[in-house]
């Protein structure tokens, strides 16, 4: 993979994590006594997810799927870490093992 493709893939993964964090933030905000701004955050989330989708398509056009899929497998891990840092979510050891196994499974499925 060239430097450009790597950059595309990394930015697309960052967009995925940011987009999902915004969506979750918007939906949590919506439930609060003062839900101001939730629609704006939802829109930011949707736009960021669109950026992710386009970048991911761009990466798929340049790289074999088998090389991209380990990155796809990594995305739940990135999202869990993002949710811990920015949304103060917690995960017990079962949850961590579950996340790790699903990541490995995704890579196995796509490696074949």
């Amino acid at each position, binding site marked *: 993979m060239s430097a450009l493709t790597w950059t595309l893939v990394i930015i697309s993964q960052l967009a995925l994590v940011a987009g*999902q*964090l915004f*969506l*979750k*933030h918007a*939906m*949590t*905000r*919506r*439930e*609060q006594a003062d839900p101001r701004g939730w629609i704006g955050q*939802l829109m930011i989330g949707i736009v960021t997810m669109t950026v992710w989708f386009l970048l991911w398509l761009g990466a798929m056009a340049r790289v074999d799927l088998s090389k991209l899929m380990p990155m796809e497998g990594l*995305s*739940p891990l990135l*999202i*869990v870490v*993002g*949710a*811990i840092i920015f*949304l*103060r*979510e*917690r*995960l*017990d050891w*079962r*949850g961590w*093992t*579950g*996340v*790790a*196994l*699903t*990541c*490995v*499974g*995704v*890579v*196995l*499925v*796509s*490696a*074949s």
Partner: protein
Amino acid sequence: MHESLLKTKLPTPARGWVWNPYFQILLTVVLTAAAQILLKIGADGSAGDPSVGAWLGFHELADGWTWLGILAFVASFGSWLYALRFLPLGLAFSLTNGVHILVPLGSWLFLHERLGPLRIAGISVIIVGILLLAQSVARAEEKA
């Protein structure tokens, strides 16, 4: 664990299995997998179709599959947003990996793609991972 932004508790969903956030995650997963397969069918249909005039009916059908796929994607987004109201993001997103179980199974059933041993192993590993995630949720809900 069921604490999130600004330390607010997540709301309780309405009664009935349709409103159960885990059912909605399942719906997200099934719809996303269906969308992928429908889009693939649509793409294959139009790819092997150089003469548009002669294959007009077939072409239309191919487009129909594609649009059905897009519709399924939009619907899956709706159920995903619903589920996010009630579940922590990290957990909900990890559960959506069920897509990687359904897509190879669906491709095997409907597109006659091969289901090799590595794929079956991967599917099994994902199933174990999702069961562990489910247990992790159950524990967290007991404590809450």
